[in-house]
């Protein structure tokens, strides 16, 4: 097919939008992106287990590698580029100071198993992070080691199991709102519990009556997100905590949304027993294309004795790591070494930057921005639950009814407009849910432009401009991808093509 001079190019690239092959397709045997000296001649001590045959790794030079990843990066959307509305994920600005701090050789080039007296500064830093988190949550104990939010959930729920086991209590039923994040039920089961869903009321919060009905002697705990995944504060949280405690159950709070209340409300004052904190959400450590994160868990006195190993203690001789528990109460170890140190450094830099005086402004601005979006959109779109919201604005797809445009289509059209879409179809209790979290690091100008664009899109959908949605995205590096085919016939790694039949020499010469 002849390329169209208006829409096509010969190379397949288009201006600054450049295609990029797989590393494996750029292989040249013998080429290398590093220069390593020849190894000294020694007698092998590999015991005859020398690796045989080629591994299959491609050979590229440094210039190609730099270009490869630069080009790949240019196919991504990121906070650094624009509004990343992905609700529940708190895509706030990641300060560059944090990146500088974590790379200080005195922190980056530290082996986790160095003698304790050579890492006093590192342990002190962990202790400082612990102090900030305990103070901000009003909780007496913290476990720093969990690797992310879901790992923090495991940590908390295991502590609850340990506490139950310790008192010989066999209760296993865990109440989980239907609106909960998928990690909550998955965690409960991974800790040997069973999950009992509780419905939401018309306001998007735990249905208090239904909750009370579920209570019983076999209830081990609730896993409740607060502010919840609808972006709402659980008004009855103090009553819920009291009711649980009355029956000897525990309150696990999913603190993924702590960013909405940090500096203004201490979860410890609400009666919870433990809560994880996503340092990669509330405390601005980068999301890095999917991780790493960190999920420290704060604990009430009731659970503090069961916290996992290791933890830092401080005495006359300095800082120490407790890696084995004397009393046997700790539920054990959950993560290699001492946790996500790099995230502790970043989070500390962030907390110190905002200070005790500034974090309330952080949460306040996050909530303000979300409500500004809510106010700006609620007449064109349909708000899922009435009233103001916390840090994220939730819409359902009622406004799209009859338009032939779905939440998915709407999201893809947002891509064309230069935005990262909101979280879609979550929470599950809202039809065609659209969960928009702007965060506090968005300027008003940015919000205004976003609101204008969303309103224009909503109007376009209602006015029957379907193409804009069904064809979307039109301007992204790829258009809609076939996910069904990907799952039906999974291709999960590159494989060399079968070598083509070499043409007979005579044919080639023709």
């Amino acid at each position, binding site marked *: 097919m002849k390329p169209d001079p208006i829409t096509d190019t010969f190379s397949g690239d288009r201006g600054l939008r450049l295609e990029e092959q797989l590393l494996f397709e750029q292989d040249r045997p013998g080429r290398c*992106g590093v220069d390593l000296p020849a190894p000294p*001649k020694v007698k092998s001590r590999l015991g005859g287990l020398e*690796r045989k045959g080629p591994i299959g790794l491609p050979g590229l030079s440094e210039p190609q590698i730099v270009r490869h990843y630069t080009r790949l990066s240019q196919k991504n959307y990121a906070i650094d580029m624009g509004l990343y509305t992905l609700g529940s994920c708190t895509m706030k600005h990641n300060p560059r100071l944090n990146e500088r701090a974590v790379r200080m050789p005195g922190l980056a080039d530290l082996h986790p198993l160095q003698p304790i007296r*050579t890492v006093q500064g590192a342990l002190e830093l962990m202790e400082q992070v612990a102090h900030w988190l305990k103070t901000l949550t009003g909780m007496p104990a913290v476990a720093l080691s969990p690797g992310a939010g879901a790992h923090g959930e495991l940590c908390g729920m295991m502590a609850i199991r340990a506490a139950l086991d310790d008192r010989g209590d066999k209760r296993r039923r865990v109440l989980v709102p239907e609106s909960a*994040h998928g990690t909550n*039920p998955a965690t409960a089961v991974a800790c040997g519990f069973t999950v009992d869903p509780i419905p939401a009321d018309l306001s998007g919060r735990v249905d208090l009556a239904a909750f009370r009905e579920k209570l019983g002697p076999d209830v081990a705990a609730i896993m409740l997100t607060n502010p919840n995944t609808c972006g*709402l504060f659980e008004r009855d949280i103090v009553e819920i905590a009291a009711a649980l405690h009355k029956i000897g159950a525990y309150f696990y709070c999913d603190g993924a949304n702590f960013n909405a209340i940090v500096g203004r409300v201490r979860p410890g004052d609400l009666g919870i027993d433990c809560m994880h904190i996503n340092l990669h959400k509330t405390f601005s450590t980068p999301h890095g294309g999917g991780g790493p994160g960190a999920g420290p868990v704060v604990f009430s006195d009731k659970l503090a004795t069961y916290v996992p190993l290791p933890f830092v203690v401080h005495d006359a001789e300095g800082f120490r790591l407790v890696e084995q528990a004397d009393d046997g109460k700790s539920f054990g170890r959950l993560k290699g070494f*001492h946790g996500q140190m790099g*995230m502790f450094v970043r989070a500390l830099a962030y907390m110190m930057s905002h200070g*005790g005086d500034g974090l309330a402004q952080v949460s306040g601005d996050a909530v303000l921005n979300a409500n500004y979006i809510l106010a700006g959109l609620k007449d064109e779109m349909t708000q899922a639950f009435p009233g103001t919201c916390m840090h994220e604005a939730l819409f359902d797809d009622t406004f799209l009814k009859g338009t032939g445009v779905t939440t998915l289509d709407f999201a893809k059209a947002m891509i064309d407009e230069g935005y990262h879409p909101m979280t879609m179809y979550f929470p599950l209790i809202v039809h065609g849910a659209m969960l928009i979290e702007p965060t506090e690091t968005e300027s008003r100008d940015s919000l205004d432009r976003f609101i204008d664009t969303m309103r224009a899109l909503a109007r376009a959908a209602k006015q029957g401009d379907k193409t804009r949605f069904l064809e979307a995205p039109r301007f992204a590096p790829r258009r809609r991808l076939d996910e069904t085919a990907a799952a039906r016939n999974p291709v999960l790694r590159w494989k060399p093509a079968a070598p083509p039949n070499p043409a007979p020499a005579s044919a080639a010469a023709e």
Partner: protein
Amino acid sequence: MRYLPLTGADRNDMLAQIGVSSIEALYDDVPKRARLTKPLDLPDHAGELEVERAIAALAAKNLNAGQAACFLGGGAYRHHVPAAVDHLIQRGEFLTSYTPYQPEITQGTLQYLFEFQTQVALITGMDVANASMYDGATAAAEAVMMATRVTRRTRAVVSGGLHPHYAEITATHARFLEIVLDQAPPDPEGDEDLIARIDGETACVIVQNPSFFGHLRDLRKLSAACHDKGALLIVAVGETVSLGAVEPPGAMGADIVVAEGQSIGNALGFGGPYLGLFAAREKYVRQMPGRLVGETLDVDGRRGWVLTLATREQHIRREKATSNICTNSGLCALAFTIHLALLGEEGFRRLAALNHAAAVQLAERLGAIKGVTVLNDAFFNEFTIRLPRPAAGVVDRLVERNILGGIPASRFWPDQPALANLLIVTATETNTVAEMDAFAAALGEIL
């Protein structure tokens, strides 16, 4: 407030448009008595210079590995990471994006994860690999849980050569899932017999190669024994660089391979964040934990990548998920894949050869010291020596000479006098011969 774009005037205008009088009013749902009325007892906000100074002051209280001669391993290795790696992972498009839920605008992340999966499969000798776990230790526990799902059995044999952290975490999970662990005792000599522990109830055997004490072993017999009894063989690799020199677990019959990926592309960083590698035979892919990226086409017929087989994951399957993992180690995986791409076939093999040679040179030097015995026959870049007295005290004395001289086994087994004199030492391409000479000389003097 350098990170906050709203001004006082903005806030007032916005409140007016929302129709509330103050930000506080937006917190009406919070029980009154739970609202903080005065600032918490924490330091006030600070500028960059002040924060940087405070953190630098903490950093200065540490002895960093670059200021000493470092012979530490034990699951975290000090390698030279090319400057391009850190440069590239800091690009905002990688650093400040998230899980590629919207594939059309996250092809960059998806493609590197697909390449990462391929690399991990290749170096481990396995069919498929996922897009990373938190670290090698948690990956080991996930592997044991996966094996119980695959085999529908609940007993697991744990090698005494498995990194104690890996074993402890596995035990933590096992306890709550009623998985019974048959934990072999610490295996400093590398001669444990695991085959005897396998029976028809065994879901899996988990073994580390090279072991925590540095022993390299041929796992073919073990894998045959496992398969014989319908059990899976899980092989953990603590030092991924070893795979450039050593026969991969996949070639020795492993069913699942987990590994700590830190040692490629990632700094020591006092233990984290690291990344867990997780690879398996193709037939078990639907029982794997973690994310998977797959190839597909867009509506214009152009190749692209998407997250796939999500029905294994918590956000779709909730309580029936293969794992609760959500956020993983994406950026560490990026560092890993870039470093490995720079190395390529030739560099990876040479890096491994340099490491092995360094360790052999070190073993020769240390083994020549009176009273010191090298316990290993076969090893990669790490081995165990027996000293004539407790290793912990020796290590402390070495620090005075600016040598981080290995890990005393007593750090992990403080209550086992039989292990008190054992020291686990590592050499990598970053150790010079001068450093090794200094280490040997110092050790000779101290003993």
